[in-house]
């Protein structure tokens, strides 16, 4: 799986790359418009993460050029601009998702994975982690082969964990993933806790091992010990 990160802020590009590489992606970066343009003409990527404001050009132009070359490449815009017209324009010219800076790396990761699933298998592939299997296109969850009924938020939470296995997830990022940007408050952390408690209980009931670890003061981590 090959990803191109077009971002002029070097530190951020590094962080994204590092995060993605850990998950088994091949990641390349481009810091300028020219560099990005050159790369999309030379190589084929499964997904391009593009910042709209670049020192020598506009991210929209890259997306337009990319869509002319290979229409199937997934595009995620990351931008500090959160104007509605930018979002609409982005989606109109063929991007698949729009994340406003600052975002959580785990959120970006979850969006990239979800995009890749939709793009490559039409969502028909299943996601496996030990005895847990999720079929995204029917939104069904099987634990040790048994169908497990989860609420919508519990399902979203599980998928978020599965997209970020072995990664410490902050409570804020979980809350924002489940409820959107406007929910970053003390109350939402309590709700996160109660959803995690329920999800954990349901998974354990069906015979799964306990994969959810809580990390003191920070949040949770989904991992096999």
């Amino acid at each position, binding site marked *: 799986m090959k990803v191109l990160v077009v971002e002029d802020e070097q530190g951020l590009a590094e962080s994204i790359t590092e995060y993605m590489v850990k998950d088994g992606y091949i990641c390349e970066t481009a810091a300028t418009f020219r560099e990005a343009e050159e790369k999309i003409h030379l190589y084929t990527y499964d997904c391009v993460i593009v910042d709209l404001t670049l020192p020598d050009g506009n991210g929209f132009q890259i997306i337009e050029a990319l869509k002319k070359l290979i229409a199937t490449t997934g595009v995620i815009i990351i931008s500090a601009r959160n104007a509605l017209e930018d979002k609409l324009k982005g989606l109109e010219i063929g991007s698949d998702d729009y994340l406003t800076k*600052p975002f959580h790396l785990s959120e970006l990761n979850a969006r990239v994975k979800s995009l890749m699933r939709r793009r490559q298998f039409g969502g028909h592939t299943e996601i496996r982690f030990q005895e847990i299997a999720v079929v995204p296109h029917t939104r069904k969850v099987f634990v040790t082969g048994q169908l497990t009924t989860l609420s919508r938020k519990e399902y979203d939470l599980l998928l978020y964990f599965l997209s970020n296995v072995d990664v410490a997830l902050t409570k804020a990022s979980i809350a924002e993933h489940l409820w959107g940007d406007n929910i970053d408050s*003390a109350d939402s952390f309590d709700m996160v806790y109660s959803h995690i408690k329920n999800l954990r209980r349901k998974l354990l009931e069906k015979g799964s091992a306990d994969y959810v670890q809580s990390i003191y003061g920070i949040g949770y981590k989904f991992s096999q010990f």
Partner: protein
Amino acid sequence: MKLLNKTNRIYLAFSLVIYLLTAIAFYQIIRLVIYDEVENRLRVEKRDFQAYVRAHNTWSNIPYFVENKIEITPVNSNSTRQEEFSDTLILNRYDNELSPFRQLTFYQSIQGVVHRVEIRKSLLQTYRLIEVMTLAMMLFLGLLLVGTFWFQNKLSGRLWHPFYDTLSRIKGFDLSSGTSLALEKPEITEFRELNDVLQKMADKMQQDYRSLKEFTENASHEMQTPLALINAKVEQLIQNEQLTEIQTHWVESIYHASRRISRLNQGLLLLAKIENKQFNDSQSIDLSSLLSGKLTDMEEVLTFKKLSVNIQIIASFDVVLPQTLADILVTNLVNNAIKHNQTAGQIELVSTADQLYLSNTGGVLKSSPERLFERFKKESASPDSVGLGLSIIRQIGDSYGLTISYEETNGIHRFCLERVVR
């Protein structure tokens, strides 16, 4: 009233007055001239009469006075001897009609007896003359009046055309559209100067607007990018398992602080954008259904905080707002009602065609309700609130014709939204 209508009306009123005055003056002058003429002739006849009486010392109705319009009556000597002119009507012998006459009355002694002598001259022909002249004059003056009025109307319509053209272009000018104001260069110096000034002003405004817009966008970008970097690095740091408990605590604080700055930054930028009127896709939005929809979306949060919701929509409350701002307004109101509520509290939404109330239970307010709309004013020192939510609500209201008031009585906090009556 339009400028042209106004000037035309004034012009018309003024012309009518002048017209009437001229007509009256004209009539009077003609009358005066004719009377003078008639009176002169009457005086001549008087002299003839006196000469005759002096020569013959008697008077008879001899045919010398063809018109036979002379009447002599003996009077008492003590009556006035003043000579005077007067108008009189006399029955015409032939057609039995009263005809106007000018009469000269004087006193003359004939054979020692004072007689009153009245010499008359018919005014019939002169009256016709006055009539015909007055009529002709009125007709021509009237034609002149109508003609100049029509001409004036056409002329000023033409002269003022550039002005109206400029006016309609300014009306159609949209600051945020990006197309600059294009004004013509009329021949008339004043209008050309006006257009030049307007053009300069519009260009300057547009440039300011653009640079302000760019500034907010750039500021947003320049601030959010480092924040994104901080967040990303902190998230990477969190992945490190060798962190001690105290280090974790520090990292957590950094993380929270950066999220807060980010929210603050977004809030301030949003306020600036609303102030600059950078949202311009206004449409009619049913706020009551948007609010009740938002409350439904937040059901989990409501259940978690054990809040009960009571929705009473008597009529929908429609406002004209950009969709994005309507969403922000509703989200902020609902978040506020949830955040400052108490466990097992209530939220009530009442909507009529003219008013919308959203009330919630909560603690008794310590500061003045009005002050809470100010930026960075908050009731509690809670770290999850940056104190901009209510300012944003107020700013949206101010910019789009909504009055938003807030009151608190016995722990019931109530927001009331009303349309501003213009």
